[in-house]
């Protein structure tokens, strides 16, 4: 479906156009969900379980209800429809159903005249608990059969062996998406028994489905609206406060707003699955992979969320972009009483990549081979089979291209500066330059694009020609990544006009665009906009017997045969499409088959300075080369590569939720550390353009891959600097010092 543009149009594809929401954002005039208000609005607040596992013995809301200014106190008894919600499996009570299965589980919600009263009302609710033993050890959960999904991928000859064998255990911690914008929602009753919801989301149609089921309402009674979102990174793919705020507005007949503060945000959304992995890689004497055997356990926490597809990704991407004919991968995602896990940028591939890239370095060392050379000789390319699924790779996959490109980026200057701001430990003045050792590490990642395993994945778009310009309608969620610009650029290029505006529709106005996740919106909603624009263009040309559409009308042999006003004489002309990617299939009993819609590769090179005595690390440089298919907006791509890489660095050296007995011990920005401007390394990026077999103009989604290859590259560099066999992220000072 690639269509070459006939002429270059201002603001079309391939250019770094400014985002139309940029000016309101720099001016403070952009309305985020947490900024919304409505006349006569109430504030909502939530009572949460103080236990990871406990029976609710008594719940007395009478004192809260008796307070001045309190308008409603709701519990699970007030849920009109299905008591449970969930995107994949409806297993989570809207409000506590008598047993809390994780710390922070919502128990009751309150609506009051102001925020302070709502909070005090929550404190006045009496909840008596009988604590139960929480199941918090994922291996114990596996032994007890407490799983959301188990899967085994088998390919080739299980008895195959290689001359060179390396094994390793690896662990990754729980990472939080920590978007700056908190969870927020405003529900407004429509006066006819229905409501409008303006809440943070990555997928309003899947919110809508869960809302109407739990509220017991008809689809037309609830409208979910796109709103301004302060980042997401997976945290908004699942329901948080949506049903609660809707229930409160229906119960009171008034608009109700709810906003989580930072600590509640840490509790109120799913996290990246912590993992434990074991890998055995076997190669022949020349370094060709002969067999990979691996086991992976992910802790899904108390409720299912997207644990099933996350496990599939962790399993399918546990070998990486390498050929290997003999593979056995056993995976399980377990149900525990830990905080629920779900989507975070990279979606399972992050964990697998940390293990397989650590293994590739071990293997290179055992073979006495250059680590990049080992990767090159095993690199998968179009026409090869994916090692874990056997699926033949279609389209483009420049594995060697990204390795060569990242290696060719000039290295930073060799000397260590005496400026304390550029040393490990920074202005703490812990580390003289003479104490610093430098290390370099590489990693390469493979990631699937869009939804997999036979999911009916689609996006709808409507493109409308009006006398004032073109409107692109979609319900896709812009979380900051720049989809708004990409949609404009695609429509401009196809329709040859600069006058394009993106209109965000609610759930009653257009069908689903699918989730803003899985690196999918550039290809899926971009693909829908492309198809709708092509359909509109072809229709206009046919209707007016022309051979070309330009900004000012339809032309035939270079002469205009219809102006835009004439085209729209009977009103705006539109074309509406539901776009789907190439079909994917359920895996067979061995996990084999065409389960993925497409693939993307990326490579990172990290340069780190380490103070080995104190275990302090400064990431000096974090360069990357990225397969993009076609670069629709180079500036936006650079932003994704730099930002994604830094989130991977967060997991590599600082980010982890400390969870003890199911309780998060560090749910604040004081204790959960995120890379700051001082921590952030310099980044050189290289974009590899080899058009893919689907997606507008051959473009691929690139939102996740930079997060995936970044983490293992940094750990490889720390190993290179210190000689330590580091197997867990984040790497902490004690891991380097060896306490």
């Amino acid at each position, binding site marked *: 479906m690639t269509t070459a543009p006939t002429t270059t149009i201002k603001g079309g594809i391939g250019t770094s156009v400014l985002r139309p929401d940029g000016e309101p954002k720099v001016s*403070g005039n952009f309305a985020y969900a947490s900024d919304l208000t409505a006349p006569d609005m109430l504030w909502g607040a939530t009572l949460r379980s103080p236990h990871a596992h406990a029976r609710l013995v008594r719940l007395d809301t009478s004192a809260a209800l008796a307070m001045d200014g309190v308008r409603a106190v709701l519990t699970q008894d007030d849920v009109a429809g299905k008591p449970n919600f969930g995107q994949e499996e409806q297993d989570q009570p809207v409000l506590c159903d008598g047993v809390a299965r994780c710390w922070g589980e919502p128990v009751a919600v309150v609506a009051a005249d102001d925020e302070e009263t709502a909070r005090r009302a929550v404190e006045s609710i009496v909840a008596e608990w009988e604590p139960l033993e929480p199941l918090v050890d994922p291996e114990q959960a596996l032994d007890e059969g407490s799983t959301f999904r188990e899967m085994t991928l088998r390919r080739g000859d299980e008895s195959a062996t290689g001359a060179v064998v390396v094994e390793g255990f690896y662990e990754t911690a729980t990472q939080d998406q920590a978007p700056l914008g908190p969870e927020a929602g405003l529900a407004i009753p429509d006066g006819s028994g229905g409501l409008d919801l303006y809440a943070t989301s990555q997928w309003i149609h899947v919110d809508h489905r869960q809302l109407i089921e739990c509220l017991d309402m008809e689809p037309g009674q609830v409208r979910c609206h796109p709103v301004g979102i302060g980042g997401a990174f997976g945290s908004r793919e699942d329901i948080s406060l949506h049903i609660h705020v809707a229930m409160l507005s229906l119960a009171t007949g008034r608009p109700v707003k709810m906003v989580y503060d930072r600590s509640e945000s840490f509790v109120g959304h799913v996290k990246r699955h912590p993992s434990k992995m074991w890998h055995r890689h076997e190669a022949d004497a020349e370094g060709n992979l002969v067999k990979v055997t691996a086991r992976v356990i992910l802790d899904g926490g108390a409720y299912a969320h997207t644990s099933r597809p996350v496990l599939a990704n962790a399993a399918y991407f546990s070998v990486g972009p390498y050929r290997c004919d003999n593979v056995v991968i056993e995976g399980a995602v377990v149900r525990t009483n830990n905080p629920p896990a779900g989507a975070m940028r990279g979606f399972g591939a992050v964990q697998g990549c940390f293990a397989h890239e650590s293994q590739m370095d071990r293997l290179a060392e055992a073979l006495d081979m250059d680590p990049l050379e080992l990767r090159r000789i095993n690199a998968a390319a179009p026409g090869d089979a994916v090692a874990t699924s056997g699926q033949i790779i279609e389209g483009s996959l420049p594995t060697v291209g990204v390795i060569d490109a990242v290696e060719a980026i000039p290295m930073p200057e060799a000397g260590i500066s005496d400026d304390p701001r550029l040393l490990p430990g920074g202005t703490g003045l812990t580390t003289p330059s003479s104490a610093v050792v430098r290390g370099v590490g590489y990693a390469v990642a493979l990631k699937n694009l869009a939804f997999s395993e036979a999911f009916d994945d689609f996006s709808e778009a409507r493109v409308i020609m009006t006398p004032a310009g073109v409107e692109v309608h979609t319900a896709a969620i812009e979380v900051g990544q720049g989809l708004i610009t990409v949609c404009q650029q695609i429509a401009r290029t196809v329709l040859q006009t600069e006058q394009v505006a993106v209109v965000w529709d609610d759930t009653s106005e257009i069908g689903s665009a699918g989730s803003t996740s899985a690196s999918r919106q550039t290809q899926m909603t971009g693909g829908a906009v492309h198809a709708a624009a092509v359909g509109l263009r072809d229709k206009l040309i046919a209707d007016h017997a022309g051979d070309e559409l330009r900004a000012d009308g339809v032309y035939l042999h270079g002469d205009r045969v219809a102006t835009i006003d004439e085209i729209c004489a009977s009103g705006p002309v539109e074309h509406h499409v539901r776009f789907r990617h190439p079909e994917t299939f359920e895996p067979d009993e061995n996990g084999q088959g065409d389960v993925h819609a497409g693939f993307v590769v990326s490579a990172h090179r990290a340069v780190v300075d380490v103070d080995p005595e104190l275990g302090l690390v400064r990431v000096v440089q974090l360069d990357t080369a990225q397969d993009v298919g076609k670069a629709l907006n180079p500036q936006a791509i650079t932003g994704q590569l730099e930002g994604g890489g830094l989130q991977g660095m967060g997991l590599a050296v600082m980010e982890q939720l400390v969870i003890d007995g199911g309780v998060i011990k560090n749910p604040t920005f004081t204790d959960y550390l995120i890379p700051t401007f001082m921590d952030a390394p310099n980044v050189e990026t290289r974009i590899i353009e080899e058009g893919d077999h689907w997606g507008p103009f051959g473009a691929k989604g690139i939102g996740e891959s930079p997060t995936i290859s970044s983490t293992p590259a940094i750990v490889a560099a720390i190993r290179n600097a210190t000689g330590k066999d580091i197997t867990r992220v984040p790497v902490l000072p004690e891991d380097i010092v060896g306490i």
Partner: protein
Amino acid sequence: MNVTITINGEERSLDVVGSESLLGVLRNDLNLPGTKDACEQGECGSCTVQMDDEAVCSCLVMAADADGATITTVEGMSSEGELHPVQEAMLAEGAVQCGFCTPGFVVAGSHMFEANPHPTEPEIREALSGNICRCTGYGAILRAMETLAEDET
């Protein structure tokens, strides 16, 4: 208590309760939601405003303590419809993604240039290290500030 605060050039008199932060007053009482609330602990810088000669986290300032102060928020950074150079530079360099940190960076960046018109790269990083951005990796923000740092005018 009653306080008088000059906000974006306009003197405002209002009643505040003891527990209210300047951030809360700006967002909830004065209808200035451009200043963002992301951590309420002074860790992320999203709520940065200029208070007299200092850039402060407005979540850490009691509203009562702002009595008599001159406050500039992100809404007051542009003048007569013209964006502030920091706003222009952030826009041009693609330093805005989700934009939730942007108001804080605009105010902190402007304050940085007032104190030091030609900051070096480490000086920019240090001056803005109290502002967290979760989207950009800071690269585009650095490039935006560097275009201004090099500007001799």
